[in-house]
């Protein structure tokens, strides 16, 4: 931190206002500044503030139902508990009908509903606090630090995201790990080094194993990016490039593993049946294609047009006249369905486009069994912390792109590349969450939307940070705005040097700065 701003000495000081300003500056010098200039003290105070914020968040989310009212009723919740019951010491655990991350958490916490709810709420809140901390560490300008960190926190306390911490479902852990993995990759991009790459890789694996729908975006964007960067990023250290290659391969293996185990247990049959009933059968052209790929189409199946596996007492799952269809769904049907996501991508994108207003604007109240929404602040108005409408999505995408471009122009090229890839992955994520299952689409979109909001906010924030820095530097260089700005610039420089000191373990990479 720099010295406190010197009191103005011009003639204007003779006014009452000027005298008051001088007095307050003196007071700040004597009383406040000695306290806040101590980085240790500031860190302690911020830690305490963060802990108290964490406390308030947890009390608001969990207090009313604490400790006995977190009953589980979603069929999926029982499915997670069943998976956890197998324990990680059993091979069946890894091929159970749920990816392993959330069952592992349940196992570690003794399959206790209350403890799991508390722990996942704590982890969720800590992830967003960490996000605010990382924003403060990476951004160089205090305005962008303050605003973006507050907006990041506002995403975390949005009821439509926070309410999932009260359920024994993988949504909350999925959002938590998504935040952590995004932060790790961003932190890596801001100052690349092997340590941060390892953290990013590990957090990505955790994220991939919490929901199988996380695999496609990583497979489509993350793995190729890592492998290509390991080949083409000339300015990076050799060991770093080797580590990137390693993580590309490891995450690829994890993706394949998750896909295979989920295919093996046949859980995707439900999504396949749902999609056929409610999305394929209403479209003759797509139905024809599926029939060509081997789907047994008969009158019995056609009579289920518009249905899914939940309808009519699980009719599509139990009716004898659909046995052939179900056999197909258990076998090649899942692969055919996967192929159709690529084959009919334009069609599904158009469908997604039509449904976007509903999906983006959903407040998830139908899932708010424990009344979290009434205890948390309403979502920030004006879509300033992420898109909640189709127009908002367009604006945020444009702003994010502009932010990335600014970052690339203002000595943040690695960040621009990584954030650009993350942004692309959010759309893949969105698409896959939409097409993956026609039932409970809004629930499946929660994780991708939370991740998208965070990534877009970071993209815009990075751009804003770069723009403010550029403005401030050019003003300071011109020297036209007096000593205050120079002092500010010095202050920011001090902050950056403090961060640089903290990042002393970083392996310097030319392209990073």
């Amino acid at each position, binding site marked *: 931190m720099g010295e406190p701003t010197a009191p103005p000495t011009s003639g204007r000081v003779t006014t009452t206002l000027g005298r008051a300003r001088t007095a307050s500056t003196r007071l700040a010098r004597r009383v406040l500044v000695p306290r806040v200039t101590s980085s240790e003290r500031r860190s302690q105070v911020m*830690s*305490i503030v963060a*802990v*108290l914020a*964490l*406390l*308030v968040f947890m*009390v*608001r*989310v*969990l*207090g*009313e*139902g*604490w*400790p006995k009212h977190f009953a589980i009723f979603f069929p999926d919740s029982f499915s997670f508990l069943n998976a956890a019951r197998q324990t990680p010491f059993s091979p069946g655990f890894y091929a159970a009908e749920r990816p392993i991350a959330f069952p592992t958490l349940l196992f570690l916490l003794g399959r206790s509903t209350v403890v799991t709810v508390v722990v996942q709420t704590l982890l969720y809140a800590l992830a967003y606090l960490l996000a605010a901390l990382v924003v403060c560490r990476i951004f160089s300008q205090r305005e962008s630090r303050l605003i973006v960190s507050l907006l990041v926190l506002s995403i975390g306390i949005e009821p439509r995201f926070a309410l999932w911490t009260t359920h024994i479902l993988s949504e909350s852990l999925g959002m938590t790990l998504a935040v952590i993995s995004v932060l790790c990759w961003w932190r890596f991009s801001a100052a690349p080094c092997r340590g941060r790459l390892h953290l990013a890789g590990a957090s990505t694996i955790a994220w991939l194993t919490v929901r199988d729908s996380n695999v496609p975006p990583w497979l489509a964007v993350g793995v190729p990016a890592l492998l290509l960067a390991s080949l083409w990023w000339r300015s990076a250290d050799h060991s770093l490039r080797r580590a990137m290659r390693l993580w590309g391969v490891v995450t690829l293996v994890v993706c394949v593993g998750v896909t295979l185990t989920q295919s093996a247990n046949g859980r995707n049959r439900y999504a396949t049946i749902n999609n056929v009933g409610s999305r394929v059968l209403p479209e003759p052209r797509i139905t024809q294609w599926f029939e060509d790929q081997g789907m047994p189409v008969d009158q019995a199946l056609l009579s289920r047009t518009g249905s899914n596996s939940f309808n009519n007492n699980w009719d599509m799952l139990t009716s004898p006249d659909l046995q052939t269809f179900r056999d197909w769904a258990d076998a090649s049907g899942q692969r055919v369905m996967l192929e159709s996501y690529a084959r009919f991508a334009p069609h599904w994108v158009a469908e997604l486009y039509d449904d976007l207003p509903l999906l983006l604007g959903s407040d998830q109240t139908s899932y708010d069994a424990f009344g979290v929404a*009434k*205890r948390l602040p309403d979502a920030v108005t004006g879509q300033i912390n992420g898109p909640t409408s189709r127009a908002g999505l367009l604006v945020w995408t444009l702003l994010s792109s502009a932010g990335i471009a600014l970052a690339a122009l203002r000595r943040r090229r690695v960040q621009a590349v990584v954030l650009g890839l993350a942004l692309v992955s959010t759309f893949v994520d969105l698409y896959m969450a939409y097409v993956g299952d026609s039932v409970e689409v809004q629930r499946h979109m929660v994780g991708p939307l939370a991740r998208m909001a965070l990534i877009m906010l970071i993209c815009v924030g990075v751009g804003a940070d770069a723009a403010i820095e550029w403005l401030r530097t050019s003003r300071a260089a011109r020297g036209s705005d007096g000593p205050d700005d120079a002092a500010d610039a010095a202050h920011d420089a001090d902050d950056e040097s403090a961060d640089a000191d903290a990042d002393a373990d970083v392996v310097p990479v030319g392209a990073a700065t």
Partner: protein
Amino acid sequence: MTVARGWRRVVLLATVFLVGAMVLAAFFHNEFRAQNWDPMQTRVYVDRTIHFGGTFYENGLVNKGPLEPMVYRLAAAVTSWDGFWYAISAIVLVISGVLGWAASAATRFFGGHRMLGLAVGIGVFFHFALGKADYAGVLYSRNMIIGLYGGAFLIGISARWWLPGRARWASAAVGVLLGLGIQTLFVGTVAAIGVGLVSLSAIESVDDDDEYRASRRILFWTPVLAFVSAPLYYAIRGRFEEFWSSYWTYNVYQNVATGRSLANQLVYGRDVALRYYRAWPLSLLIVVAFVALTLALWRSMSRRERFVHLALTIWFVGAWAELVAGQRYSSHYFSILALPTALMAATTIGHLYRLVAATRGEFRSAAAWPLLAGLLAIASGGGGHLTLGLEAASSYSSVHATAEARATTQPGAQRTVRAVLDLVSRPDDPLLAWTEYPWTYLQYHRVAATRWIWKSFMLGQIYLGRSSPDYVLPRTWQWFANDMAEAHPAVFLEETALPLTEGTPFATYVHNGFEEAYAGATNNIYLRDDEAEDILRGGAGDEFTPTARLSAGTNWDLGAGSASLAADTPPSFTDAVALSDSLCTRISGTYLAEPGNAGSFLSFRFDSADGSAPNMRLNVVDTQVFSGDDGAIFDSTDLGPPLTSALPGDDPTTDTVLAPDDASTTEATVVPVVDDASEPTTHQFAVVVGKDSAAIVIDGMIRAAVRLTNQDRLSLEVRNGGVELGDLHRGAAPPNSGCG
């Protein structure tokens, strides 16, 4: 950052989290918990003082010093009516914090590690803020006293207060705190002397002779001045008689009314002490350990440490002396014992740490002790209040919303009384009540019309003592008359379980100026004669022609001053008669009731034109009259023997009088008498609608009343059997119903 440092930081932050949760829970839970007997009583006095002015002693029987009502007055000054208890809860938090701090300072004074002191402080804070003891989480006068004494002890034991130049101020501060404590409860003098000894020992360390002597003088005289400030103030204001009557004379009554000799008091105290320590063996263990350590370490202790030990011993003995002298052992009183015991524990822990640390050195785990102490406090003290507090904190949205949520859970009888009160008076207006409870006034948002808020004061009934007219304070009835002249209450509320005692000036006052207007299961309401006239009989107003709510297709036959519906008309929620399109009115007339047939289910419905308000209802079902909404019945009364007993097949009762049970109240009303209960009977009715409530008067008495929220019109639904309304008039609302 090293691993050890990182671990320390995580542990300390976890401690912040836990203590933060305690504070949060205590604040929101104690708002509810603090609404206890004596605190409510004090609030009633304070509300009265705010309304009528004057001193606290002119507005209630305050048998303690003025500090307690003053603190409550402060709470009222900084909050709204609904938010009052949040301020009290905040004060409870502050006092608990001071006590925890004092305990922490005691531990450190005797050599305890800073973290150990913090751990002890957290434990003591939890005990007084969220513990399971009845004195935890409340603000009785004794809680204030231990706050004062705890603060004085804290100053006395902290070296920094007694540095050169500060000792005089420290002495003055301690003196004021002790003086206020003694003034609040005179029997706490011995304990105060004990607390004062700690400061006296601190003064001994002052080197400057002038400062030393001045500090001693100040420490002696300030409590005396603080103590006498109250009688002096009231003497100067010319209200010494009221002060002395409550502060001294009533305490004398309380002392003699138990009828115990001194020996008997001591024996009783011994028995209570034995029972207490059987229930709280840990307290006994602490006291024994403290005494043992005092004896064992006496020779090795410094002079100041000896003083502190002596002070705690005197304080502890003084606390028991206070209890024995008071002759009453309510569970809330034991706070005065709990604090010296807690400080003994803190002292003992400090000594033990010093002994252990001298042999093995410092503990690396010290950073975790506060966290462990917090967890231990929750585990041993019971987490029930903590859980309730977190629940309250979680669901809290605003003071107003909390008040509204509580209003929705009010018992029906309470709703009825409040609704009737709102027809003749406004919130904070005087209410005359013959009661023994402080919440009678608070739950209706009224102030007590008389300073004698309980009947016991007027009948000479002493708490946990005997009753005698000798224990009625001198000038009680003169002051009562003064109060009545000043308050001119519109309502007298009688609890059916505590009927008005005849033969008292109170009863005479009621009989001479009030008329019974409502007879319920738990309360009887009497209205001042002019108010009763307005409500029960009122000005009829003009005859009017009701209209149908349906624009077309109504089955009602509507005419000038009449409305009828054929008995065979199917029930309809929509085909209702519009009686008024606004509140603040009085709809009167007659209705024809025929058992099981005509008029057997009338529903006077209050709703809003835009459908934004819930429906409130006053229903007449045969002889029963209900208040309620669409989902629940709040309260009900009966017009007389049920008409349905006279349905075909039953043996009809002859000469059934459809009048209230108390015939004395129906002199001015038409009392229909039927030879055969199955024959139609005409009843006079009036629906009296004020700004905030409405009541239905049938045959001269209020039968049901309901509070309104934002309803704005009145309709009549007939659910069963048709009806004939006649002589319909629309008049003005009562003058004090908020419609002015």
